[in-house]
């Protein structure tokens, strides 16, 4: 099998085709959940890359919010095409990550995590206070066009879903290929031993910087999708620190084994939150917290570890059968 077109690639491709097919049958509220999952999934892929590098960010709402606000600001400037908005959102989030990276690449562990949060809260403070940035009310986001096309009203959301699915697909495949490359494997190398990386002839800080920018770009993609999906941006739902917490939640839920699992994790999170809110409006945080606790206790490597667990069991069973057969042959 070609090394790029491996199982994960085909899995993601089948997932995309499945989503596009489902799109014809989805109720609008389901489509909304799907769009939000795709959006948060993109951000969580960025966190996965950092996670594999041994870094956790409690502040990626910063880049998510930057992407989302870019959509609103660009619309004010008269730009209304989804693809242009996507590029702008990625660019602003990416540039921000690039500049902050010069500082953050020097920090590890809890300092890295909280420094990110600090920056996200600075942005939150600025957005909430500045009148011309919408203050706490934020901005409305108008319907976008698709490469100049403005679809009929009943086609708008399905078309948006198709585009979001493609953006997420490209992000996931790109991240997957990247993680399999030598540069991508540097995540493990930096996490395990920075001294060795330096003495192999590569800068660990540079490696971290690159991964940070990638995570910023992915968070930008997520922010753009989210802004267009909910049609509104405001500091509380885009930049406030619990938003960053959502992404960390998804990453823990999905595990860092595979980029595909991240989207499953995002979907599970979205469903969990929706239903928890619907059936226990006063206790939904408790339900979310309880699920996180269960995941950490019973599936510390996330949903993805179910798969490897099943495979191990299958192999064990197979091995047992083989040895039984051999024993039977010996008896014969």
């Amino acid at each position, binding site marked *: 099998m070609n090394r790029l077109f491996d199982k994960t690639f085909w899995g993601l491709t089948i997932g995309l085709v499945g989503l596009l097919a489902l799109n014809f049958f989805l109720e609008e509220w389901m489509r909304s959940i799907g769009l939000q999952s795709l959006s948060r999934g993109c951000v969580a892929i960025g966190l996965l890359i950092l996670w594999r590098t041994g870094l956790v960010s409690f502040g990626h709402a910063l880049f998510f919010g930057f992407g989302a606000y870019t959509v609103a600001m660009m619309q004010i400037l008269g730009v209304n095409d989804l693809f242009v908005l996507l590029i702008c959102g990625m660019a602003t989030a990416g540039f921000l990550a690039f500049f902050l990276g010069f500082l953050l690449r020097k920090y590890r562990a809890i300092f890295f995590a909280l420094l990110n949060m600090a920056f996200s809260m600075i942005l939150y403070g600025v957005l909430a206070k500045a009148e011309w940035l919408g203050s706490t009310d934020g901005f409305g986001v108008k319907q976008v066009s698709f490469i100049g096309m403005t679809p009929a009203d009943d086609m708008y959301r399905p078309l948006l879903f198709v585009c979001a699915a493609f953006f997420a697909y490209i992000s996931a495949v790109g991240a997957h290929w990247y993680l*399999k490359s030598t540069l991508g*494997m540097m995540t*493990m190398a930096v996490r395990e031993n920075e001294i060795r990386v330096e003495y*192999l002839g590569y*800068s660990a800080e540079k490696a971290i910087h690159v991964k940070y920018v990638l995570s910023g770009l992915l968070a930008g993609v997520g922010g753009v999708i989210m802004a267009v999906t909910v049609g509104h941006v405001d500091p509380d739902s885009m930049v406030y620190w619990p938003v960053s917490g959502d992404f960390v939640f998804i990453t823990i839920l999905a595990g860092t084994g595979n980029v595909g699992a991240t989207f499953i994790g995002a979907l599970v999170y979205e469903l969990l939150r929706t239903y928890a809110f619907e059936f226990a409006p006063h206790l939904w945080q408790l339900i979310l917290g309880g699920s996180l606790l269960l995941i950490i206790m019973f599936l510390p490597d996330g949903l993805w570890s179910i798969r490897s667990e099943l495979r191990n069991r299958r192999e064990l069973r197979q091995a047992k059968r083989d040895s039984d057969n051999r024993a039977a042959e010996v008896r014969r």
Partner: protein
Amino acid sequence: MTRVLEVHDLEKNFGGVVAAHNINVAVEIGETIGIIGANGAGKTTFVNMVTGYLKPSSGRIEFMGKNVVGLQPRDVTKLGLCRSFQVPQVFLSESIFDNMMVAYGIAERSGLGLFAPLHTEERAAKVDAQLKRYQIDDYRDMAASALPQGVRKLLDIAMATVRNPKLVMLDEPTSGISVEEKFGLMDIIMQALREEETTVMFIEHDMEIVERFVDRVWAFYQGQVICDATTAEAMKDEKVREFVIGQEYHPAHVEGGVHA
């Protein structure tokens, strides 16, 4: 012969502590140098300065005629000066094979393209050859955290030499290794390095190892090189015997005998 390494008037102070003073040494291509000295004599500090990990207070370090003071370890590594560590620096969570794959991936220029996969058959073949050279191919798929100390040391050196360095500095290659295994381990290392015609410099406490593998000895004492001579001469040197070896060491041949 050409000189691989020349060190001039090297000084290093940590506050009031003198870690290196007036070090003037040179290494010819193909030599094997043994660095000896008690704990705290400045041996590892010297290696750290030469490989760019520490910046000397003053002095000049020339590697292949190029001044390397102020360069980062990664730059020194790229010039062809590599090192191993007293405590092996490997990627503990990964298998020996993956450790080596990453090492080669980083070392090869072509390995660093965007989306250029780490696992290629060509690279795997190189890894297997290197594992065979260091005789650790039996442990190929074992996680580095589960390896015996000796194997981990060999892995550390195998990773340090993926760039075919011109000079390699080994920081106590036999520390933490049982007496019975030491010679076997050094045989493997020296054979592998000579295959690549690498100039070797290693820190060692065991004088029997030094006598067997080394052409020339540098004895460190309180940050200074108190002796720079052939192994046989160094073993007879009075200062070396007093400050480095200690009086309890009396091998037969120093008294005029032959190698047993």
